[in-house]
Each structure stands twice: as C-alpha cells, then as structure tokens.
C-alpha cells in the first residue's frame, strides 16, 4: 500500500514539474533547450560556447566599424591617411589568432562528437523505418531478448483533419497540432538505447530535439544512433528531410517512462507469444 502511495506521490510531483517547465517548442522561443540526455546537453553547450564567441567577435568587429563610421567621416573634415595601405604584422596577427580560437572550439567539439557516436553496450535496440509519410517502430531486442513489438505511427486524427487546405478548423484549437501521433514510441528512462534507421522509399530523417540529435533514414541502408533519456516525459519531433508532399505531416512522439512501465508496454504490444516479453517484465520488477 505504502509503495503505491509513494508511486502516486512521485507521479504527481512529476506532473507538477512538467507543467511548470512547459515543454518546447514555446511561443517566441529564442534558443535551443538543453534537453533530457547527455547528448542534448553536449549539443546545447557547444551551441552556447560558439554563440558567445561569435557575439564577442561581433561586438569587437562591428564596434570598430561603428567607431570608424563616426570618427572618420569626410563631414568632420577628416583627411584620409592614403599612405597606410598594408601591414604584414597585422595580417599575421589576424590570421594566427583566429586559428587559435578555432582550436579552442574544436577540442570540446571533437570530444562531444566522439561521445555521440559510441553506440556500444546498448540495452535496448529500436529499429525506425521512414515511410511516405509515417514511421514504423520495431523493438528489436531488450536486455538480450528478441522482441516482437512492431507498429506504425502516423499523424494524429485531429491534426490530420485540421491541416487539410480549407478545412475551416483553426490549427490553434488542436492540441499539439502537427506534433502528435496516433501511437507514440514508448522508451525506458536510464537505459542506453540504440537506434537503427532505414527507410522504405525516399530519404527521411528522425529528430526529437530534446534527445539532442537527428539521423537520416536512407532506403537500402542502416544508420545508427544512441540515446539515454534521463527524465520521464513526452518528447516531440518531426521528420527533417524533405520526403514529398507530407514531409511536414509525419511527426514523432517519444514517451519516456520508468523501466517497469516500459516492460509492461512491451508485453501489451508484443505480437509474438507473450512468454518472452513477460519474462523481461518480470526481470524489470
């Protein structure tokens, strides 16, 4: 009994927290968000480092320009210094210093990229297939056991009705318009998850901003990525490679849940004999 109350309290707290820090995208949003994975935080940090360096360089360079525009005007009677035409010293300086700045940027970028490409030792493998214009999700294996979850995930009914040209339905009245699906992908938190991407027809791309990366889904080829979701929640993304007329209408929804809940979802959605999935579910408890 106490365990159930504790679980409910935890769930309530999570809901309150989720409502307070409302999910992206937000109206008037200016910046990327740090996301819910180490990968997303890496991307965010590299983005912010680059942004600040560029802002500082911009202030210096544009500052010099504005000073020049005010100080060195003909209307002020300034005589141009026509003999000052070159300086090898300055050329060397403003070649070498930028190279050093680039090296400073390249080091964390390299480390970040190496982190993002290491798909080894994953507990769960998910295969994602892009179609015109929906996604197929298959849970390939979980904790060494092959799984048989396999389903299509398409734009939800309400969005699909509203988006028709001349539908008369105001998009603002549809909840999570174009960012909602009929059947989301459920994934466990605190688990290293390996993704395999391919496509059935043309090139698509799978992107959930809060997970921190995107990967192309290419017909006839298999691409890899990994994630480890730290926080439970619902994360929304979209196809990000032009794939035809409904490219903008094949979103992605990931529901990250605690492992026990995920194991339960596996059982409920397995197409094969319930035995294997149930064994894993029992393990999770």
């Amino acid at each position: 009994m106490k365990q159930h109350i504790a679980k409910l309290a935890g769930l309530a707290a999570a809901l309150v927290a989720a409502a307070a820090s409302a999910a992206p995208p937000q109206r008037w949003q200016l910046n990327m968000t740090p996301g819910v994975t180490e990968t997303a935080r890496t991307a965010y940090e590299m983005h912010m480092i680059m942004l600040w360096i560029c802002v500082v360089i911009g202030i210096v360079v544009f500052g010099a320009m504005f000073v020049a525009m005010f100080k060195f005007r003909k209307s002020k009677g300034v005589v141009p210094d026509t003999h000052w035409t070159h300086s090898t010293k300055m050329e060397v300086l403003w070649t070498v210093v930028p190279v050093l700045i680039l090296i400073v940027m390249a080091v964390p970028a390299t480390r970040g990229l190496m982190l993002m490409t290491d798909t080894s030792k994953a507990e769960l493998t998910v295969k994602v297939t892009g179609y015109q214009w929906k996604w197929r999700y298959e849970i390939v294996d979980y904790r060494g056991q092959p799984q048989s979850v396999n389903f299509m995930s398409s734009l939800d009914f309400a969005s699909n009705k509203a988006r028709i040209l001349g539908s008369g339905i105001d998009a603002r009245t549809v909840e999570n318009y174009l960012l909602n699906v009929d059947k989301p992908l459920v994934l466990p938190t605190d688990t290293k998850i390996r993704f395999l991407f391919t496509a059935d027809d043309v090139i698509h791309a799978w992107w959930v901003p809060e997970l921190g990366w995107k990967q192309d889904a290419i017909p006839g080829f298999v691409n890899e990525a990994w994630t480890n979701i730290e926080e439970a929640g619902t994360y929304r993304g979209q196809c990000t490679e032009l794939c035809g007329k409904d490219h903008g209408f094949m979103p992605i929804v990931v529901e990250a849940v605690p492992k026990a809940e995920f194991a339960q979802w596996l059982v409920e959605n397995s197409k094969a004999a319930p035995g294997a999935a149930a064994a894993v579910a029992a393990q999770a408890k």
Partner: protein
Amino acid sequence: MATHAAEHDHHDHDHKPEGFLDRWLFTTNHKDIGTLYLVFAFIMFCIGGAMSGVIRLELMSPGLQWVHPEFFNQMTTVHALVMIFGGVMPAFVGLANWMIPLQIGAPDMALPRMNNWSFWILPFAFAMLLGTLFMDSGAPAGGWTLYPPLSIQGGSNVAFTIFAIHLMGISSIMGAINIIATILNMRAPKMDLLQMPLFTWSWLITAFLLIAVMPVLAGAVTMLLTDKFFGTSFFSAAGGGDPVMFQHIFWFFGHPEVYIMILPAFGIVSEIIPTFARKPLFGYQAMVYAVASIAFLSFIVWAHHMFTVGMPLGGELYFMYATMLIAVPTGVKVFNWVTTMWRGSMTFETPMLFALAFVILFTIGGFSGLMLAIVPADFQYHDTYFVVAHFHYVLVTGAVFAIIAAVYYWWPKWTGRMYNEKAGQFHFWWSAIFVNLLFFPQHFLGLAGMPRRIPDYNVAFADWNFISSIGAFGMLVTLPMMFFILWQSKRAGVTAAAQSWEGARGLEWTVPSPAPHHTFQTPPDIDSSKLAHGDITDVA
C-alpha cells in the same frame, strides 16, 4: 579598323548597331551583353521573389490557407533554382561582362561571339524550367538539391529540369572560359596581375571554380536522368547503388557553388569601400591571397552539408575542421575592409551603405555558418530554419546587397546619369530593416525546432513566422522601388562625370560616362594614380 581608330576620337566609338535584333539578339559587345544579363537577372529576381511571396504567405499563420503541400514544395524548389541560377549568378556575370574589360583596359571580352551565346542560352533554359509549372506533373518539388530517390519520383519535370540545368551549366562554363581568357591575355600593358582591381581578381578565381564544378553538377544530374529513364541504379540501393553518393557528388559542386556566388561580391565590396573612404584598399595582396585560399578550401569541405547521413567519425571530424578553417581567410577579408575604413574620410552614398551593410550582415551569416560547422551542434541545426537563416544572410544580405551596391556604384558609368541619392538611401534603409525582420527570426525558429521545407507548423512557431512574413512582403516592395529609382534616373537623372565618385580609382573611371559602345580600342597608358586600389606604393 586599326587605321580608323587612329583617325577618330573616342566619341565616334559610340556607334551602336541599328535595329533592335542586331543590337540585342546578335550583339557581341561586352557592355550590351552585360546589360542583357543584368536585365534578365532582375526579371528572375522578380519571379523568384514572387515564389518566396507564396511561401511566406502560406507560412504567415499555422494551418494551410493558400496552397496544397505539393505546390508549396514546387515553390520552395523553383524559388531556389531561379534565385541561384537565374538571379545571383547571371547578375554577377553581367557585372563581369560590363566591368572586366573596362577595368583591365581591354576593348572587349576575348571571345565575343561565345559571349553572346552564353547569355542567350539562359532564357531558353529558364523557359524550360518555368514551363514545368504549367505541366500536369508540376514543377520539380524535391528541393533545389534534387536528392534522389525523391527527385526521381517527379514526373516529366525531372527531364526538363535536368535539361535546363545542363543549359545553365554550359552557359556558365563558356562564360568562365571567356573571363579567364580575357583576363590572362588582354590586360593593358603595365597592368600586372597584382595591379588588377579586386573585382577582376575575384572573377578570375571564380571562373576557375565554375569550370571545375559545373561539369560535376552535369554529371550528377545526368545520373539522375539515366536512373529515371534508362534503367541505371546509381542512386538506388536495390540496384546496388547509393542515394548518399548523389549527395557527395552534388555537394562537391554545391559547396564551391556558394563561393562562386560570394567571391564576386567580395570583389565589389573591395572596390566600393576604398572609393567612399577615399583611401586605398588595405592589404591588397592579403586580400588576393584570401580569395584564392577561400576558393581552394571550398573544394574540400562539401560534406558539411551531409553531417547526418551516417558518415564515419573520422570523416565527420575532418569535414568539421576543414570547414572551420574557411573562417580564417574570410575573417582576414573582413578585418581588411574595416581597416580600409579606419583613418579614411568617409561619405555614405547608397553604394557605400549597401557595402557596409554587407560587411556587417554577411559576417552575421558567417557566424551562423561557423556554428553549423560544429558537428554536435549541427545535429540540432541541420535541416531546420537555422540553416535557412544562415544561407539567406550570406546570399541576400551578402551577395544580393553587393549586387545592388554594384548597380548603384557603376550606374553613372553605364548610363551617364546619377540616380536620386535620397531615393537610393531610402531604398537602402527600407531593405536593411525588412531583410532583418525577414531572416533574423528564422534563427529562433530553427533553434526552437522548426524543420525546413514544411508548409505548416505547430502554433508555437507562429509568432516568429508572422514577423518573418512581414519582412518578406516589405522586401518584395524593394523590387519595384529599385526599378523605379533607376528608371527615373534614366529619364531625368543628373548627368554624371567620367569620374562619377570623388574617391573612385581605376581604368573604368577614365572613360566617359556613359561609356562609349567601344572603349580602349587602343590600350591605355597606365600610371599609378589611375589604378584602382591595387598594390601601389605611392598615391597622388
């Protein structure tokens, strides 16, 4: 001809051919061909602009109000093809045709009849491309980058688009050959390479880029054609091919292509800032070497357009480092422009306003480009509006502002008339405000998660999209605005002097305004006081 030249003074070299067809269809004159290219480019900017108007109209609010998604994709695809191949590139070639012979003291281009054909191919190419809009299968709708398998899903537009691209490529290659032959062979005596104006230098280098990469594009699109119609499977995995190979081949063309579209702009800005600062270009030699370095580096960075295709780690790291390196020579150029301004004596006529806005806004585009080079961050930026913002900053506030600056700058030389300066400055400020309203919010949209090439979006993206669309409509107004300003100038503008700007230097300013139909029939005698801001040690 030679004996006549000795007897007549230069006023007689204004004989233009009688008859409309003789003057315009059969012309071999670099000035008239330059005019043809510029007029064609302006028309194409209007057509491409109309398409962007459709795009921004649909994107003004969430929900689909105006067009079907299929048509929207045709608009985004053809908008880009028209702007790149019909707007920016022909405009720069038009400026090259007009100004290179004048800047180097040559009577015309090396191959005048090939020059005529280089231009006249273009209206046919674009008639074919734009004609697809009226066909059953519609215009191409797979993006200007034509990635297979999607691009091959198109109907008959695939064939017409590919033929049109072949024609445009032939036009560019012939033009490039002409430019190289002219610059290397027909400079006036005493004009060494390292005394040429920066605009001419930038075109010499751009011409080599064109010859190197247009054939690669031709190869790529021909493989698309055979995959669709002749049973090959270059890009189809089922037949043993690879869709990603197309991307590698396309971007091997595509990356140098974007430098083809910006190097002449650098040359223009390097002419204008010294003129209005009344001071020679700072670091002339460094500026030449910077353009050459940028051109060289542009060949070895192509896969930064493909960071999410699944390249191995080593490949991604290499392309990241190489791409970051391009910031160095580009930065050198920006620093030299600023130093040219420093301790100058500046006035701010319209060409200078556009040139200064170029330096600031192109640099902002450069910053977002540097951010895009960082692969871990690019995984979040790729295929979002952050990329759209980046390339529109470098192409619109970059290349197009430089083209506008060049037109205002050389207009008195071409027409013998000044434009109305107040009107020109109004055009500038209007453009500067609306172009930033149009593109700056697109950075935010990309960072917030809005993908590219979508006709509709979640309501969270609505606010910045609305502002961007207001910016777009404001920018569309500038097309008739500029046309009107220039039209008025031709009709009733103040007569211009040969040296139309106080600080202007260079051979083009030694001929009358308007420049006679034939100039430099005999090579000019050059002294350093007449040179453009080239590598001169003493200035009058």
